[in-house]
């Protein structure tokens, strides 16, 4: 029982990172039916901007709270600008073209971000300040939970809660959901469709960047290739939850995180990807609309 609960804690922590990236996939897909394969790499870019601030620019020596706030906010803004650039220059000209053209472009953008980051930050593995956050934790029964784990999960949940409140509770958020159904009808409401698409790209990038910084804080090591597997796992999470479905992306992220933690715990880390992508293929074959996919089916 002890190990199981311990793996569960790890799974939920990692799962919350996947959930954030998966939300980016899902928000953008919901609006323009585009799988933004650069999503995981946006997370990597966020991680590097955060690293630059904390390590290169020495923010780690500031008071902890201030350092952390800046290390989240600036990468979120920076990555949002990167994603807007991708939208404007790569996707926008293709939006009315074939799906295949957009899909290949999205894969290309993933590579552009990876290689661009390699040029800027180099190919070496960099390290977040390992002692920035307290290493202590506490025992919940037999399970040891670090304060960092708690903090990361709480921040993720706050971000997700904020997103849900925005999408469900504001007229702008309602406009995002309306776009998922009918672009022309949305235009007739006076909605500036391009503006709402940009908003989706900004939100997706901000969530990805936040997860990137969290990954840096949690695992310490970052590298320009880290977004690739992260993106694929988060994509699996989004598909698992029913792509286009916001609560689905969150649940999917948590499920993939748990699956990964149990696999690593009970089998071996080597099996992680086999299991995770086995799930992706199974879902695609057996229930392509995902576990919570009714709403996508409704829209198709």
């Amino acid at each position, binding site marked *: 029982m002890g190990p199981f609960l311990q793996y569960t804690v790890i799974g939920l922590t990692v799962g919350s990172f996947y959930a954030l990236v998966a939300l980016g996939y899902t928000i953008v897909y919901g609006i323009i039916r585009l799988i933004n394969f650069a999503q995981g790499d946006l997370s990597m870019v966020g991680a590097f901007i955060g690293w630059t601030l904390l390590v290169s620019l020495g923010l780690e020596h500031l008071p902890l709270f201030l350092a952390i706030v800046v290390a989240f906010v600036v990468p979120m803004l920076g990555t949002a600008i990167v994603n807007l650039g991708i939208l404007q220059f790569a996707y926008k000209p293709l939006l009315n073209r074939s799906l295949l053209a957009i899909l290949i472009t999205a894969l290309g953008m993933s590579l552009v971000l990876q290689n661009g980051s390699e040029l800027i930050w180099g190919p070496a593995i960099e390290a977040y300040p390992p002692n920035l956050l307290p290493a202590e934790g506490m025992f919940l029964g037999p399970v040891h939970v670090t304060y960092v784990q708690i903090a990361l999960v709480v921040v993720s949940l706050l971000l997700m809660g904020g997103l849900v409140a925005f999408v469900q509770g504001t007229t702008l958020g309602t406009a995002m959901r*309306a776009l998922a159904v009918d672009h022309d009808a949305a235009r007739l409401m*006076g909605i500036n469709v391009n503006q709402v698409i940009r908003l989706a790209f900004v939100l997706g990038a901000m969530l990805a960047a936040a997860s990137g910084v969290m990954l840096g804080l949690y695992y310490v090591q970052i590298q320009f290739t880290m977004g690739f597997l992260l993106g694929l796992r988060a994509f699996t999470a989004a598909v698992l939850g029913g792509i286009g479905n916001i609560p689905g992306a969150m649940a999917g992220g948590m499920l993939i995180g748990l699956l990964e933690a149990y696999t690593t715990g009970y089998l071996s880390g080597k099996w992680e990807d086999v299991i995770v992508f086995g799930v992706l293929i199974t879902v695609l074959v057996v229930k392509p609309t995902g576990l919570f996919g009714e*709403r996508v089916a409704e829209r198709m």
Partner: protein
Amino acid sequence: MAVLEVRDLHVFYGNIEALKGISLQADAGQIVAILGGNGAGKTTTLRTISGLLRPRSGSITCNGKSLVGLSAHGIVAMGISHVPEGRRIFNVLTVEENLNLGGYLIRSDRAMVQQRKGAIYALFPRLLERRMQLAGTLSGGEQQMLAIGRAIMSDPKVLMLDEPSLGLAPILARSVLRTVREIADRGTTVLLVEQNARQALTIAQRAYVIEVGRIVLEGEASELAKDERVQKAYLGGFEAVSSASPEP
């Protein structure tokens, strides 16, 4: 003065010319009916006015200001609202959310949004009862009420309706058209596309008849209702039908 004026509008789908020089105008508070058979170009006309389609040539003005080249959302902001063919309500949103989106452009003025929603619920009490229900679960008639309510949330100068009575039982169709009359009586100019020519002509002041992309007849609604060609083509014997159903 004409609130809405369209001159010599030419619209193409690829190489196919769907509108071959349409001109029409609507004055303040008037209901102007556009009649015509399937594929005549009625929907194309409305979609071009609301900016969903771009004309190849021709002019569209609202109170003297040109609408050509504006984005669809910009045209809504100019005071033109369009209830599209097939209603196109947002099925996965609630009735209330659909209305909120109708007030998208005034969303920062919450009091105004509330006030207009109140007015629409007064006009369509059925919507008030169902405000938290998903729009997709409404009956056809209720969906049409919602589509109209959503379109007048922006308090438009011009309301364009594309076959609002389509698919409704005769009683409901009449009640929808009566509501359109009420909306026009409050000063909104209405452009009404209808297959239901008989009823459209009873509530309209002016009417145009379109055939394959051209206006073939225009004039006072009451005159057109008596026109032999209109009776033959669109009314199926106007007198006979009108005496069979007790229309006020």
